[in-house]
């Protein structure tokens, strides 16, 4: 099912040319620029294969190319991640019934050396933090390359139809999707920034005085980026929680649902139960209503709404119940989610027998928190510690966002789960600090860092920020 009308988004404008792809021989209508998984979902195909060990149905899950749930065979090539592979006219998609076999006679690929790109500063990740880091580093005089694994810039901003909080100079009152457009335009104005989309960093190394970032472009070309400094702004990963049948197709991460409906205009389902009343869950509920999807309830294990109250009020007045002190017990259904069973929790976080409620839903949305994506920082050897307040394991850094490895900076959710607003400010700090550290920025740029730091302090001075400050005490060094 596709969304054709939306109060905020215009999909006609986004969709490319109509193409036909084939799933198990059946023709399916798709649009250029969308991924296989999105097209299949729009056609009502939720199950892509059966798992090996327990023979359970498998379909879309993370929608960002990180889990292994959505692998299909495309034009005879097995193990294609359908959620990040774009459709092409005539593509033949098959369920992966078994593990793949090696063909008897394959030709070796013709190889050529990796494409090499040099810059002063390499920014990994084109979300709010990375974009601001790139823009500011460029303005401070650095030659910048930015790489991002998605087909579009903006990170999670491109899925955010709601308006942002903060100060107006920090884009408060502007929708996330619009902020992404503004930042992208700013980026494009700068000739000293080169952007590589659909480019995933797979490793980082110290290479003499330089940093080497190895990446793969469009899943088919090896790239080597060399620079004097790196800003890592790789964002966050969604958390999972264990409950019975939590692997059924239809149990989706909040981000996957936002990708479906807000990026590609595909209706994620008809009736949804949301787990988690933090900002992500609350915003998701509102976005689902905007997309014409019924939200049956939001369940939250804590005794109160974790996100901003105003987000809760928005969905409550549309008739969506928020069940605090409740948890999901299980998903039910054969091939995909048909029902969700929830129950109330006692003071020891145990479900109270007899309080079970059954919701007739086809989607269970998990919005149970985020954790920083620190893989590349961990791999390169930055010091990692655990800070619950920042969402999990994070890298140690100084107040200019430099990690324990000189020349490697971090910003945004990958530095600790916070908000897009703080991500942008941290990106600014990191971008300028990187430019200063390699000696290309004039000393006056220190003032800009201080301004951004003040803005961060101001933003964090409330009750929500206090929590973050507790976490920062653990990770900020020097």
């Amino acid at each position, binding site marked *: 099912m596709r969304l054709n009308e939306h109060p905020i988004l215009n999909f006609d404008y986004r969709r490319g040319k109509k193409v036909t792809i084939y799933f198990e021989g059946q023709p399916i209508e798709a649009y250029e620029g969308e991924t296989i998984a999105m097209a299949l979902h729009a056609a009502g195909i939720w199950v892509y294969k059966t798992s090996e060990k327990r023979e359970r149905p498998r379909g879309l899950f993370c929608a960002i190319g990180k889990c292994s749930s959505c692998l299909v065979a495309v034009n005879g090539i097995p*193990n294609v991640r359908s959620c990040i592979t774009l459709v092409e006219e005539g593509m033949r998609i098959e369920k992966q019934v078994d*593990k793949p076999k*090696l063909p*008897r006679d*394959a030709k*070796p*690929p013709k190889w050529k050396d990796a494409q090499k790109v040099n810059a002063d500063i390499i920014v990994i990740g084109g979300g709010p933090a990375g974009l601001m880091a790139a823009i500011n580093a460029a303005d401070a005089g650095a030659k910048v390359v930015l790489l991002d694994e998605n087909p579009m810039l903006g990170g999670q901003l491109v899925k955010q139809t709601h308006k942002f909080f903060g100060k107006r100079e920090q884009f408060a009152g502007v929708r996330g999707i619009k902020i992404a457009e503004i930042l992208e335009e700013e980026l494009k104005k700068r000739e000293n920034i080169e952007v590589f989309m659909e480019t995933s960093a797979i490793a980082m190394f110290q290479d003499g005085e330089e940093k080497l970032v190895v990446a793969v472009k469009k899943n088919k070309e090896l790239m080597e980026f060399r620079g004097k400094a790196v800003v890592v702004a790789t964002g966050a990963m969604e958390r999972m929680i264990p409950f019975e049948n939590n692997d059924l197709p239809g149990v989706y991460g909040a981000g996957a649902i936002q990708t479906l409906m807000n990026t590609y205009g595909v209706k994620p389902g008809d009736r949804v139960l949301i787990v988690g009343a933090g900002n992500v869950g609350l915003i998701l509920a509102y976005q689902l209503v905007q997309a014409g999807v019924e939200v049956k309830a939001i369940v939250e294990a804590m005794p109160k709404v974790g996100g901003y109250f105003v987000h809760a009020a928005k969905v409550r007045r549309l008739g969506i119940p928020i069940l605090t002190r409740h948890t999901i017990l299980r998903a039910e259904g054969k091939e995909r989610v048909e029902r969700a069973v929830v129950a109330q929790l006692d003071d020891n976080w145990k479900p109270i027998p007899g309080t079970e409620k059954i919701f007739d839903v086809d989607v269970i949305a998990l919005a149970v928190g985020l954790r920083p994506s620190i893989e590349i920082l961990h791999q390169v050897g930055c010091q990692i510690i655990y800070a619950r307040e920042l969402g999990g394991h994070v890298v140690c850094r100084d107040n200019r966002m430099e990690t324990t490895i000189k020349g490697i900076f971090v910003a945004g959710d990958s530095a600790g789960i916070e908000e897009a607003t703080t991500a942008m400010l941290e990106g600014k700090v990191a971008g300028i600090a990187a430019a200063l550290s390699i000696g290309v920025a004039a000393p006056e740029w220190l003032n800009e860092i201080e301004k951004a730091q003040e803005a961060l302090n101001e933003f964090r001075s409330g009750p929500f920020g206090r929590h973050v400050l507790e976490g920062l005490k653990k990770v900020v060094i020097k």
Partner: protein
Amino acid sequence: MSEITIIGGGIIGATLAYELAKRGENVIILEKRFIGSGSTFRCGTGIRQQFGDEANIQVMKRSVELWKRYSEEFGFPFKQTGYLFLLYDEKEVEEFKHNIALQNRFGIPTRLITPEEAKEIVPPLNTKDVLAASWNPTDGKADPFKTTIAFAQEAKKLGAEIHEYTEVKDIVMENGEIKGVKTNRGLFRTSIVINATNAWAKLINAMAKVPIKIPIEPYKHQAVITQPLRQGQINPMVISFKHNHAYLTQTAHGGIVGGIGLEYGPTYDLTSTYEFVKEVSKNFIKIVPALKDLLILRTWAGFYAKTPDSNPAIGRIEEINDYYIAAGFSGHGFMMAPAVAEALAELITKGKTKLPLWWYDPYRFEKGELRTKAIQMG
């Protein structure tokens, strides 16, 4: 108080504990992390008899017999899926003909096969430029995790004690006699110590003040594994010296595992390198082009505890009462373990063994009597 203390709970320690316990010895293992956690679980899983010298051929022949026996007794998987050495030039073929003759003399059924026959054994093999292959169907592979755990458990059943998370800090000696082993968990009184720490052997030797030079150095050896495939894709261990000493095979979980002859050291660093990932990919694809579409899931590294002739140092250190070493396996520790453990247990308990352990004499370095370099591969 135990009679015998084995330092190191890898495959050597575990098999030794089993063999000694079976012979009624009072034995303990001290392992600084958990059983197998050092280099064993990181190994390439291969077990082969295709060596180029009599001693190693005999030891490995016995080892394969024991692998087979114990896999049946203890119920761990050991598969005789063979080793296939791909040969690309006349010189290589000649050398292998010589080795095959030697192996045949000891009853090992290795034979030279044509590229076509090799392709029958490994259908996706690229046989272009392959002149011939050395094929022994009785070589094999085993799961390092399951086997090591099995030996440790069997040893325990026979009364051996296994102390995990117990790191040896010093060896207590009086007048050249061992009195005990100091660890982070206190003193273990003992009279016999066996150094089975392989990559860490020099540290333990130093604690025991071993008076002779036993050059064992840790080298980082990396491995790679791909996503799982249907079983039966690459059954044997396939080896190509031409392709940077590449070796690869399919694991029980379906992934293609392997490595190349790229080493770094001496070092205790185990981070994976970019050079390795590129080199291993390039060489694997030349051997099996169809691998190009497979996802590399992980890389990791373990240690080759190397000696100058790639043969281990196994035996008693005469100057210390009583100190044995079984280390420096140079990449062959896993495959050799059952035979080495049996022979060393015989040596310790009876003072002699049928297997040519003399070949691994720890004094040979001091005496300048290096052996022919063992084929160091998979």
